[in-house]
């Protein structure tokens, strides 16, 4: 679905953000794109959406070069950016103006998402709070039914009840022919939705695995005495004890701790990567 080959990109000369970056994403999954501040998550998402161009290499989405921004490509992709602008019009006016660009737009679904999110239909977009605007944009994004849906920090600015509503609407939106890419720092908001993890660091993709493969190969657990565990790949100590990652030697699957995994990969990449090779 998304195929990035040897991508190099920099905003400034001699300061490469991506250097020979490779990434393939398939339909039928929700990818979680994780990385530190400034690692290039948003830039990578913009490359996928054709808003930035590769310096070298290619970024192909559904067989189209994203940078060419052909109409057939644009009608099948939607990006919910972290920072966005909405015009000073009503919701109805907004939908009537923008929905025609998306042939599979489902108006009924759009209004049911708004209802789920508790958004009044008759307000001007500019009179809404940041969180409300974001919910309008997310509802619109889901209603477009595009094959590729990209969201940059979607749960930022959402209040507590709407995080649960967000998970429900995303769970309903997944399908075999859709590829959803979400970048996030709030992994706990989404860790039961994301089924594949992509970690970007040091100009490259350094990790990309299914959650299922991760729990096949690694165990996540909390222990009171770290000395009693063998083969600890990474440990984080807190009041409850030590949360650790070890190699999974049994048949059992533990619940993945994405924050722990992220920290582990950033500090102890090599030994963990070897387990997956």
């Amino acid at each position, binding site marked *: 679905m998304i195929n990035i080959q040897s991508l190099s990109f920099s905003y400034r000369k001699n300061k490469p953000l991506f250097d020979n970056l490779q990434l393939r994403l398939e339909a*039928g*999954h*929700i990818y979680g794109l994780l990385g530190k501040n400034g690692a290039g998550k948003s830039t990578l998402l913009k490359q996928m959406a054709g808003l930035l161009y590769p310096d070298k290499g290619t970024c192909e989405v559904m067989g189209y070069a994203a940078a060419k921004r052909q109409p057939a490509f644009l009608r099948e992709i939607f990006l919910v950016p972290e920072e966005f602008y909405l015009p000073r019009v009503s919701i109805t006016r907004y939908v009537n103006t923008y929905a025609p660009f998306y042939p599979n737009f489902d108006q009924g679904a759009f209004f049911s998402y708004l209802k789920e999110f508790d958004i009044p239909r008759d307000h001007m977009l500019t009179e809404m709070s940041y969180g409300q605007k974001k919910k309008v944009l997310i509802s619109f994004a889901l209603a477009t039914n595009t094959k590729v849906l990209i969201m940059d920090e979607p749960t930022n600015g959402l209040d507590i009840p709407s995080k*649960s509503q967000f*998970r*429900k609407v995303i*769970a*309903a939106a*997944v399908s075999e022919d859709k590829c959803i890419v979400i970048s996030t720092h709030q992994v706990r908001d989404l860790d*039961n*939705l*994301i*089924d594949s993890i992509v970690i970007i660091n040091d100009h490259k993709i350094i990790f990309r695995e299914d959650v*299922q493969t991760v*729990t096949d190969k690694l165990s996540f*657990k*909390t222990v009171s005495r770290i000395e009693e565990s063998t083969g600890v790949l990474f440990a984080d100590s807190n009041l409850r004890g030590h949360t650790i990652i070890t190699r999974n030697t049994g048949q*059992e*699957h*533990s*619940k*993945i*701790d994405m924050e722990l995994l992220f920290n582990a990969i950033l500090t102890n990449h090599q030994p963990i990567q070897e387990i997956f090779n």
Partner: protein
Amino acid sequence: MEFKDTQAIYVQIADYICEQVLLSKWQTEERLPSVRELAVLLEVNPNTVMRTCELLQQQEIIYNKRGIGYFISADAVKKIKQYKKEAFITNELPSFFRSMYLLDLDLDELKPHFEKFKKSNFN
């Protein structure tokens, strides 16, 4: 549903479904909510629910009617007890036995405690 940090989500969802059946909230030969409905209800990835269904199908607790969905087996209660028993023996019993061993406790010594427990909780 609140998920715990200890077990894989798909296993916890399997336990949830088994519990609904044991509590007779869902009847045998009844159709399970669809994968999508369960995913939305539990706020998880539909692929996770698929994995739960595969696990429960393997244990013959549910079965698949092509094109219609998953149904709860006629002898689901029996199968659930069998599946949960195995899980109990492999997961919970070792640490229980370890404590018994460390405290020098004998199985016969526990019997009156178990009888008392059954009386006060399930009579």
